[in-house]
């Protein structure tokens, strides 16, 4: 009957058009709304991992592995975005200027609390939800193989007799490694200077070249020297002996209550909804359960703290308080 629609004109045609259009719009709206209701699954679009350091470093290596495994294990689409600068402040500001929807995830390290305490990172812990600490590495007291010092006690005894008698150095000024030395000074009751280096590799070179007598360093930065025996680790700041360094004694077993590690983990902007956070945590669980992650951690000589949000936040808060105290007494802060 309706032979050629083009010939039908008049109000009836217009009414039909309006009706169809409304229906189409409703349908389209419904279709768009549908996946939100049905799936309600985070993420619906690519997620950005904002790494707060440049490409190629340890944090970046971790961030990229995480991205790869989130894609494979979690089915996400992930983009890695390196935002180095400002001791992490550049990356952090990138996160806090984005909506709190979980689509921008910050990949950060434990230098966060030092940065905040020193006033280098103009943000507060409360600006973030710290979701998971996935890697950690301790500090250690290292000497060259020809050093007469054999234990932490030897070191402490020598420094007590000869205040500032040894040149002690490590990565960064007022950071984690100096903080560990400070704790040793407190407990051992001695005085020591600190020779800061702007890259961890330079600490290795300085110790090898006898430009410093002892270093506070992450064992993995001098890995080949530790393995070859060129460096001797007098004490490691883990609670128990690390499976990667079974021969290196801890501070604890030598009677010093010194424990600390620099963590690497992820955070999102404060105010990110709980259901989104839950979806992220589920995906991270899949990653940490995978064989590939475990192998990766082994190869990288990384401990896996795997702190969830509550523990991670609590530890970080405590770290911040203790480090602010250290920075004040070491003269970094007024």
């Amino acid at each position, binding site marked *: 009957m309706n032979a050629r629609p083009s010939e039908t004109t008049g109000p009836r045609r217009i009414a039909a058009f309006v009706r169809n259009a409304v229906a189409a719009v409703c349908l389209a709206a419904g279709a768009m709304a549908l996946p939100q209701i049905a799936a309600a699954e985070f993420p619906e679009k690519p997620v950005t991992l904002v790494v707060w350091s440049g490409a*190629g470093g340890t944090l970046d290596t971790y961030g990229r*592995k995480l991205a790869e495994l989130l894609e494979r294990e979690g089915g996400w689409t992930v983009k890695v*975005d390196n935002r180095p600068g*400002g001791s992490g402040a550049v990356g952090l500001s990138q996160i806090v200027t984005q909506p709190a929807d979980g689509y921008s995830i910050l990949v950060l390290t434990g230098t966060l609390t030092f940065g905040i305490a020193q006033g280098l990172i103009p943000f507060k812990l409360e600006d973030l939800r710290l979701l998971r600490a996935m890697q950690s590495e301790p500090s250690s007291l290292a000497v060259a193989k020809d050093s007469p010092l054999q234990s932490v006690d030897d070191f402490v005894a020598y420094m007590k007799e000869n205040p500032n008698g040894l040149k002690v150095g490590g990565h960064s000024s007022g950071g984690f490694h100096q903080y560990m030395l400070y704790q040793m000074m407190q407990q051992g009751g001695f005085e020591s200077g600190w*020779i*800061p280096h702007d890259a961890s590799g330079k600490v290795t070179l300085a110790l090898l070249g006898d430009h410093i007598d002892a270093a506070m360093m992450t064992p993995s930065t001098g890995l080949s*020297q530790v393995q070859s025996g060129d460096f001797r680790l007098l004490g490691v700041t883990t609670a128990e002996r690390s499976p990667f360094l079974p021969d290196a004694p801890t501070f604890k077993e030598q009677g010093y209550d010194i424990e600390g590690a620099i963590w690497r983990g992820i955070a999102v902007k404060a105010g990110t909804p709980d259901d989104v956070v839950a979806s992220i945590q589920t995906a991270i669980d899949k990653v940490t359960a995978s064989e590939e992650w475990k*192998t990766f951690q082994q190869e990288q000589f990384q401990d896996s703290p795997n702190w969830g949000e509550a523990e991670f936040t609590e530890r970080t808060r405590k770290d911040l308080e203790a480090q602010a105290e250290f920075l004040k007494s070491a003269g970094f802060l007024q």
Partner: protein
Amino acid sequence: MDGIIQSLGVIFSLSGIAVLLIGALLGMVIGALPGLGPSIGLSLLIPFTYTMSPELSMLLMISLYTSAEYGGSISAILLSTPGTAAAAATAIDGYAMAQKGKANEAISISLTASTVGGVLGGLALLLLAMPLASLALQFGPAGYFAVGLFGLTSVAALAGGSLVKGLLGAGLGLALATVGIDPIAGTPRFTFGQFELYEGVPFLAALIGLFAVSEAISLAEKQARKKPLGKTRVGHVFLSLGLWKETWRSMLSGSVIGTLLGILPGVGGNIACWVARDYARARDKNPEEYGKGAANGIAAPEASNNATVGGALVPLLALGVPGSPTTAIMMGALIMHGLHPGPQLFTEEPTLVYAILFGVIIASLVQYLVGSLFLPIMARTVLLPEGVIAAGIMAFAVLGAFAIRNLMFDVWLTLGFGLLGYVMKKLSFPVAPVILAMVLGYLIESNYRTALVSSRGDYMIFLTDPISVLFLILSLISIMVPIRRAWRARRAASHSAA
């Protein structure tokens, strides 16, 4: 021995040659673009290398690294916009030579010298890695300070006409180098609360601004005046026998200087090129030619900056410590493959180690091959209208500035430096001393203060450390040579007048 044969098998396999060629092409383009140096090139490449074997991924990275170190000179010579920091020294004589209509010669010299430097640096790495590494260990903070000071004395050679203007430029550069977190006390200085400045004024922003942006403004201005273009004949890039004879000494001295400074972490190509140029100038019969298009003023820095590639790999392979930002990225890639660089790698993964060692040498040769095919085409950019070149430089300069840290802040900073550079050129202030002093300022300051911290305030550390003494004496010589020469010239002049 098996490792050597297997590594050569990898290099000369189809995929080995393919990645070397791809790396060379990419490297040349990335190096030629202002701001996108070897380290940005490698970080863009990293995700693609995960699926490759460690040997192939290293070959690809080395090839890109080598060619990017070289590629920076292409734009330095043709457009006075050095693509990398290490090419800034080449820009001075290279651009002057190209402006004389000898772009082709300038490019042949730079390609040949880069190849020679790359091969010699690679040979040093292959044969002398262990002794060179123990040499690097001799450098303490006092030694690094003295090396930095020695580098700074080459300002005189860059000043061109007026030493005062050169020194003012260097002063500006040193002042800019104090911006950022204090290396010892850890507190921010002169940052005006901008956390974008905590790591200091980004060196690349100054480089791109002072050289590239200012040049684009000048070119646009020339176009407005409808000044005709200089004629440039573009042909093959094979170096004539005459030029070989003229430049081989600077290529050799440049290679040695590049290799030696390349092994020092934080020193590398940024400084080696200036020192090599200064050395060649001091030895030259016609030092006044430098800055006006001297062949040796191209050959020396070019050889040295490619020789630093081999040098920078020395601490990585011999000690497991990266010697430059670029080698730090390569270390990251190796770690991604579950490998930890260091001396034990020689026994654990001999094929990989020899692939790297031979890779450096062969990558330089591949660079020569790709360059000789590619450069005559690239050199044609100088035939474009100046307005087009100016627009192109501006586009790439802004892209490069943004690529530093993906911050608009850096783009504005770069444009600011561009205006500064333009004004400096108008007042005939050389911009190179600013760049040199910015690179060296941090090295000098941080090591000076670290040395004093470790000696607990005793200045004698600079005179008891043998390396420090050596370089302080060299600095003194480097300052005295031009003064003595000027004095002699004046005496000769007064003699002839009398």
